[in-house]
């Protein structure tokens, strides 16, 4: 058990909790979380009241419709194949290309819709920890639309992650074996008796459960045989284990011998203590900071193993721990692009972002949902930041705070992607900026010092170095005539956001 935090519970701690266990929030949201007290605040995140189906999904991604689509596509393909016999090779080729192209275009649109849908859900959800854990699993069991090509399978996987967001790591790993998107992503589809593909077996051990050095090449080879015969049944939208393509012979994995199948191999993996240590460390690093102390890691590993790999109790322990609220933790983490974008919108009280913003923002900053770069997921922390992405963050903040006429700030005149619309350069047009009456009411703008302090609280919920605060105040004072106008307030906000400090949470 980690040393627990004492009974103090400040508003800054509440803000820190929602920053890390969620995507930040407006001052009002932080205030109501604080009012619950620490225990209830943590419980409200771990066991949210919001139903899993609170956000209607795009129709194409609903299971029934998806299956109907699969079936229709298959029938069309078969009919097309038959018809092709009547055609010349060139005509047949042309028909085939049209078929493929149509499906690709549809998939592209669906991909954009999926990206916008999840982004919108993260922004609006009252179960932010569940969304954040869904993102965690998406990164952990990384699967990309670029290879899978069928957004519906990614949406099904997203649903799996959300349902198991705070559940058992072991059960989720077992479920991933039967996940169509993962199967396609790791080429497990072609792994058959006599011709096992080691890709899935290796990634399961190296990236999903144990980490490098905690298994041998022999274990990988043997487990690969256990993972044979798992295939996609697209008409049912699920993975089935075809026994006749499974290698039923004895395998020796981690020194144990038996006719294991994939489930059995995963069971063996979770018999090793490294599985608990691996995931406990990864969760700590995601929510707290990199490189936990040996003592903290040992305590977490023990809790996680004893608790049967259940995520909720582990996170509860972390969110009650002394270290989580320590100076070393608070405002020390580099925001991921998604964290950055959602938090910024919440802090600016923007419920409906400009049309082109969600997808353009993701792609400009280097974290596109459903498109992790490879099976290892995204590189977090400092890897998010380079000279270009940092300036882009500053400029995105300028676009959001200042309103219309500045959409080139988003893309430099490149086209923006919006679902079900032609790519456009004008998806930001008409954006009026946030409601500054709400963010900085008029009376507040009469006193530059108070205005700056209020904005610093809104954006950082912790003090900034005095010389930085002084610069902001000086600017506000210099700009102020009788009172700061909306556009001057916007400029001030943009300046405050254009700092290294704002990249941390």
């Amino acid at each position, binding site marked *: 058990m980690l040393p627990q935090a004492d009974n103090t519970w400040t508003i800054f701690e509440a803000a820190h909790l929602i920053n890390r266990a969620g995507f930040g929030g407006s001052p009002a949201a932080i205030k109501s979380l604080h009012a619950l007290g620490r225990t209830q605040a943590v419980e409200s995140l771990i066991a949210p009241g919001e139903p899993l189906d609170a956000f209607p999904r795009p129709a194409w991604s609903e299971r029934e419709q998806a299956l109907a689509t699969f079936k229709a596509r298959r029938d069309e393909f078969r009919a097309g194949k038959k018809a092709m016999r009547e055609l010349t090779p060139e005509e047949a080729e042309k028909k085939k290309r049209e078929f493929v192209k149509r499906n690709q275009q549809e998939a592209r649109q669906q991909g954009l819709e999926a990206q916008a849908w999840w982004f919108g859900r993260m922004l609006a959800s009252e179960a932010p920890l569940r969304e954040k854990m869904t993102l965690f699993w998406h990164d952990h069991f990384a699967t990309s639309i670029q290879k899978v090509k069928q957004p519906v399978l990614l949406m099904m996987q997203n649903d799996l992650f959300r349902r198991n967001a705070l559940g058992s790591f072991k059960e989720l790993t077992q479920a991933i074996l039967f996940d169509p998107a993962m199967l396609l992503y790791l080429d497990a589809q072609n792994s058959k008796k006599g011709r096992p593909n080691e890709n899935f077996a290796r990634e399961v051990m190296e990236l999903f459960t144990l980490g490098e050095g905690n298994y041998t090449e022999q274990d990988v080879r043997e487990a690969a045989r256990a993972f044979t015969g798992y295939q996609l049944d697209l008409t049912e939208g699920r993975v089935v284990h075809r026994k006749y393509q499974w290698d039923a012979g004895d395998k020796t994995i981690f020194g144990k011998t038996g006719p294991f199948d994939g489930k059995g191999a995963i069971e063996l993996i979770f018999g090793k203590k490294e599985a608990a240590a691996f995931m406990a460390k990864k969760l700590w690093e995601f929510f707290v900071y990199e490189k936990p102390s040996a003592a903290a890691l040992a305590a977490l590993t023990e809790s996680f193993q004893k608790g049967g790999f259940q995520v909720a109790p582990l996170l509860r322990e972390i969110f009650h721990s002394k270290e989580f609220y320590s100076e070393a933790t608070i405002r020390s983490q580099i925001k991921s692009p998604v964290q950055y974008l959602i938090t910024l919108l919440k802090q600016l009280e923007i419920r409906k972002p400009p049309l082109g913003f969600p997808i353009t923002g993701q792609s400009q900053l280097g974290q596109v949902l459903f498109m992790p770069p490879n099976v290892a997921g995204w590189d977090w922390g*400092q890897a998010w930041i380079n*000279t270009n992405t940092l300036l*882009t963050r500053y400029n995105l903040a300028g676009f959001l705070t200042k309103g219309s006429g500045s959409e080139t700030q988003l893309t430099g005149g*490149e086209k923006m992607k919006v679902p079900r619309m032609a790519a456009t350069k004008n998806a930001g047009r008409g954006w009026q900026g946030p409601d500054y009456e709400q963010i900085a009411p008029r009376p507040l703008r009469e006193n530059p010092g108070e205005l700056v302090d209020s904005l610093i609280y809104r954006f950082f919920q912790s003090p900034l170095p005095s010389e*930085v605060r002084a*610069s902001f105040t000086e600017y506000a004072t210099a700009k102020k005539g009788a009172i700061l106008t909306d556009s001057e307030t916007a400029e001030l906000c943009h300046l405050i956001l254009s700092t290294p400090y704002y990249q941390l949470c």
Partner: protein
Amino acid sequence: MKTRRDFLRSTVLGASASWTVPMFIERTFGQLHQGARDLAVQPVTGKDDTILVVLQLAGGNDGLNTLVPFSDDAYHKARPRLAKKEKEIIKLSDHLGLNAALPFLGSLFKEGDLGVVQGVGYPNPNRSHFVSTSIWETADPGNRSATGWLGRYFDNACPGADPTVGISFNKTQPESFGALKNPGVCLNSPELYRWIHQGGNKDQAEDFFASLNRPDSGTDASTADDDGPTDGGSIAMPAGGKVGGISGEGNLDFLKRVALDAQVSSKTILELAAKHKTTVSYDGTPLARNLNLVARMIAGGMPTRVYYVSHGGFDTHNQQLNSHDRLLGQLDSGLKSFFADLKQQGNDKRVVLMTFSEFGRRVAENASAGTDHGKGSCLFLAGHGIKGGIYGRQPSLSDLSEGDLKHNVDFRSVYGNILGDWLKAPSIKPILGADYPSLGLVG
């Protein structure tokens, strides 16, 4: 030219009396902790040194239709629809010719300024765009390295800490720039590579960027391919990329350092590049636009040793004949303008350009008159510094590895040759992990 020292002196240390927004930003950038400040005032180097431009052909360039083995029957047999006929090509030898879309490279070859390396690759090739790109960029066939081959060059062979030692024209940092100390800078869209304060007066920098040739949608190479959500390799790869920080550096100090790098480089880049005007005209493609920028920066006297640009769309699984020729044509035309520009500036002897692609393509065409992911391929080296000619053995078209060409030149020996003999790295081993025999490409 403004160095970091000048920059810090003029802004941080002597605050201006006139209170403008850009000044404000510079001041907040300047509030650095001591460590970053020490690093920041180290002198810049390399102003008149040799320069390498790395040009990525993203998606897997079809080497066999780029450097055509026209005399080999096996080539024509494997590609009934795609093979280039003898009369269609630019002959380099009795066996090999360039795709006709590459007339400028053909003329460079005649002048002895084009090196063509054939059969380049690495052991146990990987057919994934992402993995193979990563291997080329990190120069680690095990794909475990957190730093890139160019980043290790910056760290090991470029004294000082000027971030503009390497500039890549990409949204995210190419993995080859990953470094422990100095990863260079990335710059995706020059219009955005600055802190934009709208409402202020249009300054010189903005005018400069407005004057640049903007690509229109029709010529955007990265989207020109109708082949679905492009598998265009790393150009479409929404990666964060591998980057190393200085060990022990906290996140805030790291952010301040990058912020200063961004600010210094943004200022320098805009100021220096704005000076140069050229009469050479460039196409409207993103590649040509980026090469134009590189030329402007070279003319402006940037201390940059390595520039990195990408040309995407080479993942030609379908109906590749026209699209592949078109992509090569864009490459050739961009290079033609670029080298003419350099010549006009008098900088042509300082610059060598190298192409690479994550893999070549299958020898046999596929059912859709395209080609699938392959293994070994060819690459080009262009410039006065290059000893023109054909390097490596011509890979056999009958002795194949899973339908692909076998490589006979390790790509790291090309890197090693360029690093040592062109960029004058004092030692190759810390960069590539081993020494490689010289191919004699430079000279």
